[in-house]
């Protein structure tokens, strides 16, 4: 497949593993050829180590998944010392997903990563429903989204991707705000806010009540938001939300995505990204009939 350019960054192919669904890569190394991916977006990394939310953290829904992981990660120092070198050994582009509870948080993580060897790009997570402060707040207010983007822009020379929240009245406004503030690309969608209820007890299943919905269930929503954003800004768009097959990826490209990311589908099969890549390769070679009657998702 052809390499794809995202602003300053060139990826070997346009299929990434989505943040939070692929750990720091190594967990999947026994099960799929990491080196063939277009890139791996890491689990969100914060300055300090974070324990994450109390269980339960995942609940399956019809064709979807609710999660309330809550940025569990070993913190930037351990990431740089242990995780990054191991992942870099696979020779796959690494996009580090950066998260924080305040503007200063985002800035200090991004600044430290700027000269870290082996980092291809940053993805700013301003759209996580699973933490109390930061996260979503930056992702639903265009002014705040612009401020944090601009502040990070000043401290990094890396390609800067900003990940948008779908939980807004008009995502085009958000995309324009981060574009004006200096983002190189946008990625979307992060998870939709949702919840799960225990019908037996009448109590919410997640301790924080709210959780993030992903998977095939959200694909129609994600496609439309990608379509809107691709028409609102000239930046490259990384599309995601429910992508499971090469056909799904083609739909996102048609909606205007320059690249795509595969998230929840990795949990069904560890080679989900690779199957999308191989499907796209067949499509490039043979056209649509290569994907007719494809094997089950």
């Amino acid at each position, binding site marked *: 497949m052809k390499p794809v350019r995202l602003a300053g960054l060139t990826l070997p192919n346009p299929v990434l593993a989505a943040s*939070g*669904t*692929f*750990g720091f890569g190594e*967990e*999947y*190394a*026994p*099960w*799929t*050829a990491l080196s063939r991916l277009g890139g791996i977006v890491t*689990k969100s990394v914060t300055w300090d180590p974070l*324990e*994450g*939310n*109390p*269980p*339960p*953290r*995942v*609940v*399956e829904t*019809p*064709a*979807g*998944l609710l*999660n309330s*992981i809550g940025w*569990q990660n070993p913190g930037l120092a351990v990431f740089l010392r242990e995780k990054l070198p191991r992942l870099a050994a696979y020779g796959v582009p690494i996009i580090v997903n950066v998260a924080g509870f305040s503007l200063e948080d985002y800035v200090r993580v991004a600044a430290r990563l700027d000269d870290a060897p082996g980092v291809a790009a940053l993805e700013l997570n301003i759209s996580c429903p699973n933490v109390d402060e930061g996260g979503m707040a930056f992702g639903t207010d265009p002014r705040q989204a612009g401020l944090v983007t601009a502040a990070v822009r000043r401290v990094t020379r890396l390609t800067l991707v900003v990940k948008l929240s779908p939980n807004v009245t008009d995502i085009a406004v958000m995309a324009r705000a981060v574009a004006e503030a200096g983002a190189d690309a946008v990625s979307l969608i992060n998870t939709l806010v949702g919840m799960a209820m225990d019908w037996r007890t009448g109590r919410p299943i997640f301790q924080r009540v709210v959780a993030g919905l992903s*998977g*095939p269930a959200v694909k129609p929503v994600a496609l439309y938001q990608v379509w809107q954003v691709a028409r609102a800004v000239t930046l490259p768009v990384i599309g995601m939300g429910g992508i*499971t097959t090469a056909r799904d990826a083609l739909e996102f490209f048609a909606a205007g995505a320059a690249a795509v990311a595969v998230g*929840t589908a*990795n*949990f*069904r*099969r*560890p*080679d989900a990204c690779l199957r999308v890549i191989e499907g796209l390769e067949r499509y490039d070679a043979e056209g649509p009939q290569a994907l007719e009657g494809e094997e*089950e*998702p």
Partner: protein
Amino acid sequence: MLSPSLGPRLVSVVGRQEVSPDSVRLRFAAPEAASAAQPGQFLHLRCGTSLDPLLRRPFSVHAVDPVVGTVSILFRVVGAGTAWLARRHPGDVVDLWGPLGRGFVLHPGDGWLVAGGVGVAPLLFLAARLREQGAAPQLLWGARRRQELAAVADFEHLGIPVELATDDGSEGHHGPVTDLLAEVLSGRRAPVYACGPRPMLRRVGELTRQAAVTAQVSLEERMACGVGACQGCACPRRGGGYALVCHDGPVFPAEEVELG
């Protein structure tokens, strides 16, 4: 480092048995799994052919036959995934991944196996391995009612003594299986291997701490990836932080995890 032979693959069902009114045993032709599996590890199965159910379901390895090349699971039908699985018959194929996770560490000594309900599943495989190593384990098994204890014959075939307990008194001791454990620990102190509902495991933890015997518990938590990537299956560690059931477990030393 790729282990494709244990990755997701289609395997054939070669045996099916309705063990009790709501539980089924399936046997799969999966030689690699049969050779690789350790007691306490799990198999991660697709339970359908569509996008609902979306995720795989974990099941403990229940029995292996490395010579014939088969591996079995024993499961209770509780929802859509297990209902689908229960409709599989010999000749059908199922998408199987694994074995995954960390199983039981086999300690010296005969061993008490403590099971609650279908938590007995991994203990048959464990019992077989303990026997192979010359140990003489015994099973304490509790369930809600007598009908759920049908698989007891499998342990008897292995020559393993079994004591039973039921919540409704329809078989064996009338009360929790941990009553039996309390009793036997006062006699023979041996390592404990337990699988069952959380309250049972908590009590196992208390009793074994008091008796100062090692105990390992097999935990369940809702899983997504099954390989330590999503952090979905967190269970609180004693002393703070979380362990991952799929990757650090499902079997843990009882004192390492919060069973509260």
